[in-house]
């Protein structure tokens, strides 16, 4: 695939929102860089899927949601959880497997949950979150609540039957779901054109009669505007919307991935489109952000990460006697 030019041009967002979005993306980046480091030290184990490179999607989309909305995400969900308001310390403690983690240490990196924030995971079955989101939207509709259910999933999920069944049900019943497809071009190591007969994902969604939007997932402004438009439509009761965010993962699929399936040159090319530096460059060009302001945001993120590590390190292990808890209601 030909790599498009980096996002550019004026940023039409209010200054405060722009700065908040920069902070959001930097917080995810700093958190995950630390996670990779801690993985190397054996503090975090299991699968660890980094979102580095894709931060604009979570940052732009999450700012389009309201507290009463539901969020369903995937196993690459550290950023979504963080921006939904799950405390960084609780996320880090979860990755450590500590009792103070946002899932009590039972879930780990792939299963972050926070019921109070209406953050419903953390689903490690590709496509597994889509039917769930449809059902949550059905509940909202039956209860007469104007609640959007935002369902994040990768383009790999598009090959699953669950994708087709869910989009059909959502459109058939005009349910308030925003389907947010993060197309990072690779389902683990399988490129989109090697797995899909139709690589235009919006065409697939449109086949269900659904409204679709295709947008540059590396451009946080475009992401935010697309997500906001989709959520307004969904909230107004006009039925579900499918948004494709075209993005790119800079790191390996997981910590076990030797990346045999793509060229280093391709990754470097996509890095020129990096969501953080292209956005900050645009803001600086307009005089909406100074280097000192950026460094301040970055320092704050680094400090937050350090505090999260301290919190996780100080966390406790759930007693083994409690092993069989959380199967059924106590």
């Amino acid at each position: 695939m030909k790599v498009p030019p980096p996002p550019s041009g004026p940023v039409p967002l209010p200054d405060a929102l722009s700065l908040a979005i920069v902070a959001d993306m930097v917080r995810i980046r700093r958190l995950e860089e630390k996670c990779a480091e801690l993985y190397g030290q054996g503090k975090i184990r299991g699968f660890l899927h980094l979102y580095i490179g894709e931060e604009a999607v979570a940052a732009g989309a999450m700012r389009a949601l309201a507290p009463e909305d539901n969020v369903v995400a995937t196993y690459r969900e550290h950023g979504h959880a963080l921006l939904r308001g799950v405390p960084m310390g609780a996320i880090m403690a979860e990755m450590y497997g500590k009792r103070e983690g946002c899932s009590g240490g039972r879930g780990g990196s792939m299963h972050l949950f926070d019921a109070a924030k209406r953050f419903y995971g953390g689903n490690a079955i590709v496509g597994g979150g889509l039917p769930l989101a449809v059902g949550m939207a059905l509940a909202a509709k039956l209860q007469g609540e104007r609640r959007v259910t935002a369902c994040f999933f990768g383009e790999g999920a598009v090959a699953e039957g669950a994708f087709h069944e869910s989009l059909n049900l959502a459109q058939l019943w005009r349910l308030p779901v925003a389907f947010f497809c993060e197309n990072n071009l690779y389902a683990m190591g399988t490129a989109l054109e090697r797995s899909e007969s139709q690589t235009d994902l919006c065409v697939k969604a449109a086949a269900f009669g659904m409204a679709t939007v295709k947008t540059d997932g590396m451009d946080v402004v475009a992401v935010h505007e697309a997500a906001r438009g989709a959520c307004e439509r969904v909230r107004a009761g006009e039925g579900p919307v499918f948004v494709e965010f075209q993005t790119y993962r800079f790191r390996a699929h997981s910590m076990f991935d030797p990346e045999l399936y793509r060229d280093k040159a391709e990754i470097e090319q996509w890095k020129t489109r990096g969501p953080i530096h292209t956005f900050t460059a645009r803001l600086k060009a307009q005089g909406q952000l100074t280097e000192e302001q950026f460094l301040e945001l970055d320092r704050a993120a680094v400090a937050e990460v350090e505090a999260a590590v301290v919190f996780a390190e100080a966390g406790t292990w759930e007693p083994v006697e409690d092993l069989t808890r959380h199967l059924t209601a106590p």
Partner: protein
Amino acid sequence: MTITYREALRQGLREALASDPRVFLMGEDVGKYGGTYAVSKGLLEEFGPERVRDTPLSELGFVGAGVGAALGGMRPIVEVMTVNFSLLALDQIVNNAALLRHMSGGQLAVPLVIRMSTGAGRQLAAQHSHSLEGWYAHIPGIKVVAPATVEDARGMLGAALEEPDPVIVFEYPALFEMKGEAPQAKVDIVSSRLRRKGGKVTLVTYGACLPKALKAAEEVDGEVIDLRVLRPLDMAPILASVKKTRRAVVVDENWRSGSLAAEVMARIMEQGFYDLDAPVARVCSEEVPVPYARHLEEAALPQPEKIVAAVKGLFA
């Protein structure tokens, strides 16, 4: 008053829909068609299309939507036409419904009821006749119940809807015409139950095999225990009975290998070994897909004669 097992199921559904606005029913042909086995006949007219929802043929999608609706505060009843079709929805049942409470460290609850018909005996051939209760009973995080009487057919749904966790209700078309009384609208879904007193042998069974075990018991002075709840198992009445009879046969329509019967036998061995005068025996389905031809189908399933023969084997 005597009613059929089918009518008892319908009464249970009607009561559930009438008594709790959070309850709704969805599944294939539950509405306009009236239910594949006419269980939900008339409910669409009574409760409307929002609460009696016909779904497309997409088991994975609508069972998963049931999980989501339960998370969202509703009390969905999802009907899957047969257990065979539920295999298309296994991901949502096993990977979401059963796991969400645990993966979230106890934050989430999935109060979902999944009803499905199961079992052979009506010449529906291999893809509509399976008995996979044991598979579902293998999964921590879900409760599995099997109404084998009219009273349980009437009451188990209501009890299942009171559970804060997912419950699978197996319904037995082989019993749909069976008549009986349902004196109690409320039943527990905790205990196994003595269905016939006897002295010589304990017959442990559930579902469509219960009438067969009762028939066999007449001939062999059997004490019959209906499991009712397949997960978690209630062993106390079984062990008490074995202590008295000193012999046990487990009757189960599952295939023999890895069957629910195997689990029950293992527990009798673990907890009641010294009460036994003979090895625990079992009568299961033959290890073959259920054939269409009537004589072959009958030969593949547990039958009263096979149960009697198994009991006699314990005294040989």
